[in-house]
C-alpha cells in the first residue's frame, strides 16, 4: 500500500545528511564540550559552529542563541524567565487564544501565581489584530507573546507590526516561530522580537533540540540551574549531536527556503482546490492567504475527525485532527473554538501538513481516497440526514 506522510507540522523526517552528521558526534566525536582536552574542544568547536548556523538562519548573533530540549522548553523559558526577571517592573502578560499549550498553559501557571493575564481573541481566520494588542497594554505589562504561525490552521500573525508597536516601550516581545521556521522568512530584526522560539524536528532535524533567541539586553531568569552551560542560562551538558544536527538542518533549510516554499505552496493549492471540488460541505480553516505554505486545514461537516484519521490511516495516509478524541480530552481544538467555529464542526477538522518529500502523486492519492472515506462516514452519521444541531455557527463560502 502507498504510504503518504502529511503530518509534517507534527514532525519531519531527519534529512539523511543531518542524520549522518549527528551519528559522528555519538560514536567518534563524543567529547563533552565543557572538557578542556582535545575531545572536548572538538565537540565545543562543532557546538559553536552549530550555534552560528542557527543564528545565521534567523538573522541573530550566535551569542544570543540558547539551546534547549525543544520548543516547549524554549517557550517556558521565555514566559517564566521573563516574568521572574521583570516582576519588580510589572505583573501583566499578554498572549493570544490560539497559542500552543506550551505558551498558554505556562501563562495560566503564572496567573495562578498572581500574574495578570490577558488572552487576546482572534478573528474567524485565526488572525490577531494589532489594535487589540495596543488596547490591552497597561503600565504593568512586561511581556507580549504571540506565535508567528499557528500550528493547527497555519495563519501567519502580524508579528512585525506588533514588534513596531512595542518598540521602545520596555516590554519584552516573544514569538514562537516553531511552525514558520523553514516555511517563510524568519528574521529577528525584521520581526522586531526580543525572544524567539525555534525547534529542530520541524525542519528535518532531530527531536529533542530547540533554542530560544534572546536579544542582547533582554533579561531572562534561568530555570535550569547547575553547571552553568549556555552562559548560565540553561545548565546541563549540551545535547551536542542534536544541536549539531539542528545547525545543519538550519543551514539546509536556509539554502532551500525559497524552493521548499514554492513546492509546498503548489501542493497546498492543489490539495485545497481538489478537496473543495470533490467534497461538499467543507470549510477551509485559517486565513486564505496569510498562511504558511504547507498547511491545509479543513472542516468536513457531519463527520468526526478521529474516524477520518483512522480511515485515512487504513489507506496509508497520515494526517492530524482537532477532534477531541485525538487529544484525550473532551474539548476539540482550542484554536478552532477561538476562531468561532462551533464544537460540531471543530470535531470534523482535518489537518494535512505537507513536507519537502511530498509529491503531486501523494496529493492525487489523497484526493482519490478522501471523498470515498467521507461518503462512507457521512452515510453512518446521524447529523447528515436531518442537518440537525449547530445553530451557533454556519458554514461559510
Amino acid at each position: 500500500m502507498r504510504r503518504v506522510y502529511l503530518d509534517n507540522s507534527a514532525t519531519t523526517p531527519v534529512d539523511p545528511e543531518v542524520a549522518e552528521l549527528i551519528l559522528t558526534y555519538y560514536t567518534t566525536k563524543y567529547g563533552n564540550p565543557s572538557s578542556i582536552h582535545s575531545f572536548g574542544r572538538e565537540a565545543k568547536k562543532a557546538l559553536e559552529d552549530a550555534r552560528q548556523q542557527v543564528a545565521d538562519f534567523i538573522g541573530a548573533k550566535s551569542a544570543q542563541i540558547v539551546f534547549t530540549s525543544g520548543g516547549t522548553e524554549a517557550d517556558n523559558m521565555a514566559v517564566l524567565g521573563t516574568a521572574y526577571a521583570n516582576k519588580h517592573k510589572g505583573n501583566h502578560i499578554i498572549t493570544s487564544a490560539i497559542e500552543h499549550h506550551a505558551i498558554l498553559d505556562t501563562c495560566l501557571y503564572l496567573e495562578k501565581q498572581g500574574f495578570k493575564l490577558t488572552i487576546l481573541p482572534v478573528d474567524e481566520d485565526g488572525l490577531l489584530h494589532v489594535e487589540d494588542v495596543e488596547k490591552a497594554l497597561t503600565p504593568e505589562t512586561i511581556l507580549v507573546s504571540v506565535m508567528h504561525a499557528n500550528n493547527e490552521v497555519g495563519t501567519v500573525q502580524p508579528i512585525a507590526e506588533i514588534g513596531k508597536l512595542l518598540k521602545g516601550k520596555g516590554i519584552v516581545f516573544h514569538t514562537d516561530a516553531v511552525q514558520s521556521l523553514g516555511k517563510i522568512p524568519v528574521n529577528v530584526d525584521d520581526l522586531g522580537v526580543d525572544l524567539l522560539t525555534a525547534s529542530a524536528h520541524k525542519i528535518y532535524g532531530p527531536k529533542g533540540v530547540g533554542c530560544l533567541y534572546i536579544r542582547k539586553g533582554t533579561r531572562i531568569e534561568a530555570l535550569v540551574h547547575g553547571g552553568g552551560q549556555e552562559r548560565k542560562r540553561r545548565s546541563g551538558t549540551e545535547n551536542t549531536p542534536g544541536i549539531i544536527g539542528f545547525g545543519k538542518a538550519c543551514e539546509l533549510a536556509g539554502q532551500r527556503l525559497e524552493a521548499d516554499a514554492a513546492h509546498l505552496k503548489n501542493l497546498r493549492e492543489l490539495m485545497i482546490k481538489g478537496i473543495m471540488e470533490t467534497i461538499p460541505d467543507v470549510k477551509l480553516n485559517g486565513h486564505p492567504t496569510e498562511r504558511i505554505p504547507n498547511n491545509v486545514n479543513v472542516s468536513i461537516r457531519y463527520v468526526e475527525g478521529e474516524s477520518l484519521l483512522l480511515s485515512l490511516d487504513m489507506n496509508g495516509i497520515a494526517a492530524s485532527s482537532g477532534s477531541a478524541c485525538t487529544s484525550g480530552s473532551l474539548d476539540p481544538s482550542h484554536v478552532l473554538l477561538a476562531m468561532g467555529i462551533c464544537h460540531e464542526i471543530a470535531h470534523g477538522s482535518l489537518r494535512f501538513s505537507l513536507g519537502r518529500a511530498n509529491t503531486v502523486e501523494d496529493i492525487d492519492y489523497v484526493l482519490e481516497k478522501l471523498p470515498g472515506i467521507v461518503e462512507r462516514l457521512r452515510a453512518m452519521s446521524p447529523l447528515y440526514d436531518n442537518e440537525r444541531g449547530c445553530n451557533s455557527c454556519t458554514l461559510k463560502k
Partner: protein
Amino acid sequence: MDHFTNPRNVGEIAEASGVGEVGNPTCGDIMRIYLDIEDNIIKDVKFKTFGCGAAVATSSMVTEMVKGKTIEEALQISNKAVAEALDGLPPAKMHCSNLAADALHEAIKDYVAKQQSGK
C-alpha cells in the same frame, strides 16, 4: 478495529418500535439506535453514529449483541460488557463506550413509552 472498518447494522429503520439517541456535539459523539421489536424480542437493530473510531465500533458491537434478545436481556447489557466484547478499549475511550449501551437503553425506553401511550 474490525467493527470500525466493517461496522454491522449501519442505517435506519423506517417505522422503528423505538429510537434512542444520546450524546451531544460538544463532546463529539452522537449515537442513534433504531429497534424493531416484536413480541418483546429485538428482531432488528440499526445505528447511526457521529464519533470517533471507538464510538463507531461500540455502536456496531451493541447492535450485534442485542439482536434476537428480549428487552429484559437487552437492558442487562452494560457499557462495560460492550467494551469487553470488543476486547477492551483504551481508558480515555471509555466515555465513548458508555454511549452505545445508553443509546440502546434509551431506544428501549422509547419503545416502552410508545407501548404505554397505546401507539
